């Protein structure tokens, strides 16, 4: 979620794998080298599997609480006969008792079947696989850009901390971090798409393509549509990466090994690139993974504002119906994205930092 206090979120991101470190290291000492890591991996994967199951259960029960009869939404208020309602109920399994619905839902979910959408009358997995590439294109592009920007500016800020550039970038990052992403998106649409005053409309107001284009022209068209949503996402997200990189590097800067490196006569630039930054990147890597998971889930607003045909926009559409199977499926996908990324970060961390988990 974009609304997450900067430093506190980072604390968790950083403390997560670090916290599990000492215990894992203690266990590892007893076995062969490598066996400790295997056990660590098994533990993390097991934990992730349990989390995924918990999410599955939550997604089922949470949305059952929505008041109203789903059949009414399906028929859209049209007068329908009792037989038709009964047919709908049978088709979507709503005539079964709750526990039967639940076991059926879990059983199907384990085979990759998330049910049939009420409003589109197609399998939920089809809708999700249809929208997933669009979301991945948007979040992937934004993710690469804001991570690169955040790490680059964070490194520079820390290396020259206290100077004007540092204060400017830290201040700007904090300010952009406090801006609601949907508001920034709307403003960008007004200024750059609709056109305000002397500025002509440069970019499309929403969607992913204008249609009727093929080959290279299609790619250019999609990129053209991609610019504003990506700019919005990068602007609200890069600040966190910047601040973590900066504080991680500042922690390293007092290190004796940097003094040694300088004493060897290394250029300042090399000391930074070869010695300080790799060490400072350790906590940042965790954050980067956590962010990737969060961005997929947090893209709801930007996709809604820019009518981007992705998972977030679909979630918003499904909620307003409410299209239970689709909402459940998307909720599961969003949570799974975060869980998988967190697990990857946990697995990668001991490989990057030998002090942890081996």
């Amino acid at each position, binding site marked *: 979620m974009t609304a997450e*206090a900067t430093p506190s979120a980072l*604390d968790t991101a950083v403390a997560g794998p670090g916290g599990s470190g000492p215990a894992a290291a203690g266990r590892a000492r007893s076995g062969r080298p490598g066996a400790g890591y295997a056990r660590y991996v098994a533990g993390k994967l097991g934990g992730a599997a349990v989390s995924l199951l918990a999410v599955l259960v939550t997604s089922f029960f949470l949305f059952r609480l929505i008041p109203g009869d789903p059949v009414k939404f399906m028929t859209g208020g049209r007068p329908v006969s009792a037989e038709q309602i009964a047919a709908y109920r049978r088709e979507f399994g709503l005539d079964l008792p709750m526990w039967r619905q639940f076991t059926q839902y879990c059983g199907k979910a384990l085979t990759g079947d998330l049910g049939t959408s009420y409003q589109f009358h197609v399998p939920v997995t089809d809708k999700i696989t249809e929208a997933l590439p669009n979301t991945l294109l948007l979040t992937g592009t934004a993710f690469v850009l804001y991570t690169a920007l955040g790490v680059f500016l964070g490194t520079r800020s820390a290396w020259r901390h206290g100077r004007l550039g540092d204060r400017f970038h830290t201040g700007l990052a904090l300010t952009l971090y406090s801006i609601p992403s949907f508001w920034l998106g709307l*403003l960008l649409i*007004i200024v750059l798409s609709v056109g305000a005053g002397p500025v002509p409309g440069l970019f499309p107001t929403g969607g992913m393509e204008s249609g009727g284009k093929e080959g290279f022209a299609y790619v250019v068209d999609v990129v053209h549509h991609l610019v504003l949503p990506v700019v919005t996402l990068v602007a609200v997200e890069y600040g966190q990466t910047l601040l973590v990189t900066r504080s991680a590097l500042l922690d390293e800067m007092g290190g004796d090994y940097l003094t040694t490196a300088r004493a060897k006569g290394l250029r300042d630039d090399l000391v930074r690139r070869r010695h300080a930054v790799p060490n400072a990147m350790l906590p940042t890597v965790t954050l980067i993974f956590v962010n990737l998971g969060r961005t997929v889930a947090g893209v709801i607003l930007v996709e809604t504002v820019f009518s981007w045909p992705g998972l977030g926009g679909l*979630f*918003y559409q499904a*909620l307003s119906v409410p299209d239970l199977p689709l909402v459940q499926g998307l*909720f599961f996908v969003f949570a799974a994205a975060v*869980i998988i990324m967190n697990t990857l970060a946990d697995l990668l961390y001991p490989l990057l930092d030998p002090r942890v988990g081996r």
Partner: protein
Amino acid sequence: MTSAETTEAAEPTGAAGADGADGAAPGPGPRALSWQRRRASAARFWRAFRTHRAGVVGLAALVLFALVALTAPLTVGSDVASVTAAPGQPLQSPSGHFPLGTDQFGRDLLGLVIWGSRVSLLVGLLAAVLSVAIGAVIGITAGHFRGWYATVLMRVTDWFLVMPTLVLAIALATVLSRSLGTVVLAIGVTTWPTTARLVRAQTLAVESRPYIERAKALGGGHWHIMSRHVLPNVMPLVLAQTTLIISSAILAEATLAFLGLGDPTVVSWGGLLQDAREAGAVSSGDWWYLVPPGIAIAVVALAFTLCGRAVESVLNPRLGVSR
């Protein structure tokens, strides 16, 4: 990150030297002495806080917004939100009479933004207090009682931590009825795990100290230890955390209101943005309708963040330079 340094400010050790001189004179009883120490500690905190310029600027902005919100009934009055008694024409651009223009019902936007500050600040504060209260209770008890109780609590915390916060908040707000209480609940219930983690780590650090053992040896029960020894030591952390969470709670409130999940009967900044979007302010290029509520959200969120960071670095000097 949550090292033992945080406790420094809560302990009266630093003030003891100054108080020692006064204490030598006969008079102040234990109660007066403890108040004296608390005053000294507050004064020390303020002196340190004052050196963080960004924090002071943030605090000033907050005081200003708080005054505006508290005096809103006198300056604009609740009539400003009335659709029937709207003073102007729909969607007028800013003019001398309506400094920020009017909305689609002809209501004065300046008045609405001022009136909306009440709901946005209130929901932000309440949600943050709820979130931090849950986090503190779970963190302290999980740190104090070991064994299966703590294991279960921390598993629940971890589970909430991996849930995509916004998605969960949206889901909760959809499931429950549309009201301010729902919004507070949805934000509070989804944002507490970070606080619980931090508070638990701090509790573990505090409880490993000898004076806790002494308290136990003198017969102090669980409640006594948690409320009289652990709580005062985690309070600074909780305070800093609250300030930071308020800023995200205000953003979350705006987000939920913008998605149409807030209370439709009250005026809030996020709700104004939703109104603007529904009135077609985006496609007609009426930027003046969208800009003021957004700036208000951003300024308040930034002010709380700046304050929170200053408080954090005062209480935790190790982070002072780096953050």
